[in-house]
């Protein structure tokens, strides 16, 4: 039963106040894109056992989508940040490295 802090209203929200949205930082591939690119966008999901970046919506709260860095093996949360970012911010990466020395962003 997760708790995640919403980076918009700073409520530390119960999992039941949130709706999950799977992998974060996807690039949308539209008309004209190659089959490979489209497949990677639609289906070929990152599914790591370890650090994972994912989308959540504070659906029963401020209604905002945000992103979380979470370990899928321990459910530790390294941090949450607004959805309007195209990649994990340095602060988050630092927080991850602090607890997962040697971890690198792939």
């Amino acid at each position, binding site marked *: 039963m997760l*708790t995640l802090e919403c980076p918009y209203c700073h409520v530390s929200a119960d999992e039941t106040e949130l709706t999950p949205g799977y992998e974060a930082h996807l690039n949308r591939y539209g008309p004209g894109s190659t089959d490979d690119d489209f497949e990677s966008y639609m289906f070929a999901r990152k599914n790591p056992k370890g650090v994972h970046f994912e989308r959540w919506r504070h659906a029963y709260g401020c209604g905002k989508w945000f992103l979380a860095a979470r370990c899928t093996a321990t459910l530790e949360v390294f941090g949450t940040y607004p959805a309007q970012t195209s990649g994990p911010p340095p602060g988050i990466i630092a927080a991850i490295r602090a607890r997962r020395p040697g971890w690198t962003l792939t």
Partner: protein
Amino acid sequence: MSTRLSRGGRLIDRTTAQEFTFNGKRLRGFQGDTLASALLANDQMLVGRSFKYHRPRGIVAAGPEEPNALMNLGTGDRLEPNQRATTTELFDGLTAASQNHWPSLEFDVGVINNYAARLLPAGFYYKTFIHPRAAWKHVFEPIIRRSAGLGKAPKLRDADRYEQAYAFCDLLVVGGGIAGLQAALTAGRAGQRVLLLEQTPHLGGRAAVDGDLIDGQPAEAWIKATTDALATLDTVTIRVRTTGAGVYDHGYVLADERVADHTPGDGRPKQRLWRIRAARIVTATGAIERPLAFAGNDVPGVMLAAAVRDYVTNYGVSPGDRTVIVTNNDDAYRTAIALKSAGLEVPVIVDARTEVTGDLPAQARALGIRIATGTAIAKVQGSRRVTGVALCLQAGEGAVTDEVACDAVAMSGGWSPVVHLWSHCGGKLTWDDDIAGFVPDPARPPVNHDGSAMVTVAGAAAGLFGTAEARASGESAAMGVGTDGTRLAHAKHTGNIHPVWVMPQGAAPRLRTKMWLDYQNDVKVSDVQLAAREGYESVEHTKRYTTLGMATDQGKLSNINGLAVLAQALNADIPAVGTTTFRPPYTPVTIGTLAGEARGDIFQPLRKTPIHEWHVKSGAYFEPVGLWRRPYCFPRPGETHQQAVHREVLNTRSALGLLDASTLGKIVVKGPDAGKFLDMLYTGVMSTLPIGKCRYSLMCNEQGFLSDDGVVARIDEDTWLCHTTSGGADRIHAWMEDWLQCEWWDWQVYTANVTEQYAQVAVVGPNARNLLQALGGMDVSRDTLPFMQWADGRLAGYPVRVYRISFSGELSYEIAVPASHGLAFWNACLEAGKPFGAMPYGTEALHVMRAEKGFIMIGDETDGTVIPQDLGLAWAISKKKMDYLGKRGQERSHLANPDRWQLVGFETLDGSVIPDGAYVLEDGSNANGQRNVQGRVTSTYPSPTLSRGIAMGLLRHGPDRIGEVVSFNMVGGGTVQARVTSPVFYDKDGEKQNV
């Protein structure tokens, strides 16, 4: 015999007697008794039958670890099977009945399994009942199933109510013994918000019974002082009768509070489920005594040593007059001493250890109790209750050296720390030789959301069995510091245990088949050894092969002994074999409690339109649409639903129909980039829609599949109002926000879901305009308000927005009015509509009429695999646009394939109605021998207007095959012939809606 002593019993109030019945017998106990202590007080030794062999079963324990004393508690709508007598507080009028026997507890035919026991070793059923094949289903399984289960299945709806509550704290302490109380006190004094849970009605745990001294003062006194001190701290909350049931990720803890179990029917909730978020958790859950594995250790009258003294000290009940103690550690001597001081006989203490030192044994000797060292029980005599024990050498194979008459046996194989809650969320264990048990490994705790240790363990739960250590560890745990038992050996109270896993050590097979590990599931030492021999070597295999530890006590008594026996059989050491997984709940939780308040009217939210109550009064037959309820039709007395639907359709087409369309989704989209945004969202172009006009359009998901449709109205320069399907409003609004927040966050667009702000009434039929004119206030003439336009104004004084749109093919207006006026407006329409034949209609009439017009319905024509192109809706897809959601998905080979099934109409040759879900047959069958098909029906109705069956469906190359006759399959066999037609059956040129 077991009986009530003339004095003693710290928990009972002898001045308030309570009447109860057991198997119909009327018995008496006292306020403060448990059902178990009251039964023992009435010499009710035999309390049940075991699962597999139907062996006689007696009470073994005094707490939640009890495997035998399970009762059908209560009757009728308050019947509760498998209720544990040892944790059931006695109340006046309680009725209990024993389980799993026929015809009676004393005489149970099931016991033949016992005589056949040799033929029924662990896993015997995997090896037999194989032939003849049919016999399993028809003969063997029915027999096995009939003998399955323990308690009675309730028949009636539960009479009680339940509820749930959330709690938050800095520190959650589970367990109200010395360690727990100390932890709470320390944290409370440090100003932390503390919640302490105790499963029993009493604080203090074992100490009070064991009569320890706690820094100088008697346990009882220390407990009183401590609870008083806690009472003065307003940041500390203590909840008794509340079991910590499960520990989950991120400090989430479930607790089960028994509010009215002991006062049934007093109107309070029977139980309350606590959902707790704790920053940190201390488990001070104590330890559970282990049985010893000797032949006949399951005969009623054989009990845990600590339980025996619990009954004597807490309830003034003696399980026997002559009690033999059998042990491998000092702690059991407390029982001998307690019995002696209660004036009862202890013929002998059978101690497997060769030398016995320590002060408890010294005290026993001083009391003149005989101690037989290096000795074991060879066999317990008696079948329905203990009559004596045969002794032998622990080192030997069981040759009897002596026999002792007795009517009870108190056994102690040592103590197993209650590590369940530590383990639920991944806490790891280490083996502690000093106490011969698993203890939490502070180095490998369950982790919290921030990676820190979520749980700390204190007291006996950490293998720290002395009160001094209990307090010390409670104190440090409160500060989040775990005490590593294994590294504190010198100071540690171990009871000088010498591990004994089978008794006697060299017991012959004959004896091992009589040594019970799991009393309830009838798992014996020989079964575990068989599993090991057969290669079920993983402890998880052994568990599943023998069912060891799978009973309602979840192996609280049996697991450690069981895996020790397994380890010996594999000659591995115990830690290497490891434990099975600890799963919640710690003790079983009533399902009603977990369902909480959500039953009956508040089982789920039921969404109601402002007109809902009118529908109810008018006898509407409802259908669920998402969480909404919508009238399916309004049957009149004597009418079938279908007749009602026909009437509603014909009346609407010929005169005037009113539909409550309030559930339609309404989303306002506004901003400089709103047009551009809607162009991406819909397949059509919205940015060019003139102000005041409406346009029907489609939405697809990124796969390209059709997900919703609706009419969009342009309100002003930068505002649009999007209608969605009834089910779709929230989904589509979330979908819009998703794209705006996560993909196009630099676009200037705001959305608002105003679905519930308005009641929406569809006024449909030739008389629609007449009605609006009768209401008065707006010019709704053909020229001022032509088809696919909207206008704001007032009708009969109500502020309205009128959309001139049609989903039925008739002249029709959809009128949005503020919800707070919805019902009044609806009534006004009915009133003013009388002269025009106004009649309400439901969703089914709506469906029929749209089908007659060949309009698609999301969820009927679409099923998540259909694209607009399949439905002849290419016209609603803009060719000009570079991109829209789903466009790329639709470029994929399978979606672009010209052979896809496409929308057409079907008319049966005989006028009948094609069955729902029928497929269009094609010759031959595929490589898997399945009949080939080339299409299917998607909507099929008897058309009242055309008085014949009409249908829409998908057919390969359908539009090119108009006129062709195809056949549909029928489940019963046979086929229906139908001609392929245009999907538009009625008013093909759309004149009626344009008048």
